[in-house]
């Protein structure tokens, strides 16, 4: 009897134990072996950001996106704003090299100025990530738009719109020395080579300046009122191009293709009101996320700066009247900053 009793007690105890044991084991959990080293690799590291200037949708968007992704991991995020001054930018990069941040995020004003400096930075053990406008030096990573593709797709849009019309087009370039402008022009040329019927009546640089773009477009439209399309190189500048088209009463008749970061006010709203017919967006928040991902990966990989080199070209979003209303086509800077 005692024996049975003992057995019963034992079984109950075993049951109770086993019942309790399963959650107890789960509560103990499994230690994920990599997250600690990941956190340690990021915490306290400095990431320095040198845009060509703050205060416009692209650079503000990258800044907000990087901050959001990096700061929760204890990364110190510093910014040096050259405010469109290439010399100030070169100085900022030079002084950063001696300050030795872990990563430098660089937005190049042209292909040459920073090239040597960026190479030096990587030799000093700093990872260099270049955004959107690359330099002649290939660093750890380039994250940005494929300008040649942008030029090609914009021009294809314009060529298509010109079918059965005058076949006369104009090109409004940015600043000649900037990678974005030079490579986009190459893309434009690639497509034009396949379409000998298209005649370029004007191809001028407006220096990323809306007022200059407007002045050039006004003159070109007066000379060629039958123009069927314009390839513009940046939506911030092409507000001026669009204003000239509107003033000439040619909205809807002259197809205007441009490109930009896809901020709602600067892109979707202007496509909706007919200022732009096509805006190739390189979607700044996605670019920021890709940069942040690359930074996390590089820091946690332990790879020697300069030993790996890769590129992440942005998937382009063509914004037209069809998708300008959608929530996904554009982004709001104010939301990204929240």
């Amino acid at each position, binding site marked *: 009897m005692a024996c049975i009793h003992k057995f019963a007690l034992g079984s109950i105890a075993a049951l109770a134990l086993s019942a309790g044991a399963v959650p107890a084991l789960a509560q103990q959990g499994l230690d994920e072996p990599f997250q600690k080293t990941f956190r340690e690799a990021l915490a306290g590291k400095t990431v320095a950001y040198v845009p060509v200037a703050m205060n416009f949708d692209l650079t503000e968007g990258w800044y907000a996106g990087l901050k959001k992704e990096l700061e929760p991991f204890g990364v110190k995020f510093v910014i040096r704003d050259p405010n469109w001054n290439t010399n100030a930018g070169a100085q900022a990069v030079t002084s950063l090299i001696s300050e030795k941040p872990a990563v430098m995020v660089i937005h190049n004003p042209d292909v040459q100025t920073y090239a040597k400096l960026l190479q030096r930075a990587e030799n000093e053990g700093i990872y260099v990530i270049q955004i959107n406008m690359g330099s002649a030096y290939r660093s750890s990573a380039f994250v940005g738009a494929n300008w040649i593709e942008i030029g090609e797709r914009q021009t294809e849009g314009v060529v298509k719109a010109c079918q059965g019309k005058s076949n006369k087009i104009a090109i409004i370039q940015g600043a000649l020395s900037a990678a974005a402008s030079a490579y986009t022009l190459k893309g434009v040329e690639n497509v034009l080579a396949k379409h000998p019927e298209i005649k370029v*009546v*004007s191809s001028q640089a407006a220096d990323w*300046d809306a*007022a200059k773009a407007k002045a050039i477009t006004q003159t*070109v439209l007066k000379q060629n009122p039958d123009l069927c399309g314009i390839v513009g190189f940046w939506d911030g500048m092409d507000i001026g191009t669009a*204003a000239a088209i*509107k003033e000439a009463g040619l909205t809807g008749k002259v197809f205007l293709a441009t490109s930009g970061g896809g901020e709602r006010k600067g892109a979707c709203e202007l496509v909706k009101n007919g200022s732009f017919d096509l805006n190739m967006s390189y979607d700044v928040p996605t670019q920021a996320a890709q940069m942040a991902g690359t930074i996390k990966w590089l820091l946690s990989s332990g790879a020697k700066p300069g030993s790996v080199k890769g590129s992440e070209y942005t998937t382009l979003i063509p914004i037209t009247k069809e998708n300008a209303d959608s929530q996904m086509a554009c982004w709001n800077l104010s939301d990204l900053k929240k």
Partner: protein
Amino acid sequence: MKRVRISQQEIVFAVFAALFLSFSVFLQGFLSADNMLTLLQNVAVLGILGLGMAIVVIGRGIDLSLIAALAVPGGLVLQMVQNGHSLPASLLSAGLLAIAIGLVNGWLIAYAEVPPLFATLATGLFVAGLGQAALFQLDVVQWSDGMAGFERLGQGSILGIPTSIVMFAIACVVVFVLLRKTRWGAYIYAIGDNPFAARVTGIPSRPIIVLQYVLAALIGCFAGLVMAASVNSMPTRIFNSTLIYDVILVVVLGGIGLSGGRGGVVNVIIGTLLIGTMLNGMTILNIPYAGQNLIKGLVLLIAVITDTFLNPRNEETAQQGDI
């Protein structure tokens, strides 16, 4: 023997006439009424700014903060309307800001006796910085729905003439009347010609100098509004561009000497026409950017060198205050 004296104004006019004639003959589509209007329209804002600069230069000063006075108050209007303020309130704020810029410039130069070059360089930087740091969310301030109707200040036309040209014409008339028909205008010339003599004869030099800079800032603000209305946005980083040199060029090339006391509205118009003709002709010819700069520089050099040959300087003709 009587020596032939041709003023710089006449030389520049001759260069302008020569360019204009050759473009008219050789460049198809240049001499159409439409293109003439476009030519003027493209330089209207530059011309308005030239008028502001002319007032200051005639009074033997210079205003490097003019572009900040164009960009920041103009941008403020667009930003305030975007943030939900009414258009009249925004315009009033911009006007007050422009007056404040002028007052600070004038006070620094007239009372603290800081040389105009340094005073306006500093205020220009300060105002541009203030705009970027405190007033604007983005460098390019976008047009918003609350501005509806205001774009007519820079777009469209009145009796077939583009509005920006009309605005330039109005500014010319106002500045002409001010300089030539009022006592204040006469004082400005007197101060520019000889500030010490002007003070001795009882002209209130200091308040008049303050007035010059307030007028320049207000004209700059007006140019900014015309520009914003014309391109449907305010690209405030225009402060970093070379526009200020173009403005000084228009004034000096037109024949308003930096030594003060000479010239007027006609000189600004001539200077503006020369720049306008060059830019328009080169755009039609589709001359690339670098080539355009080369030609601009060459034409300017020819004008300046011709002037030096025809009007050589000596101790008598050289004036104190030249830059």
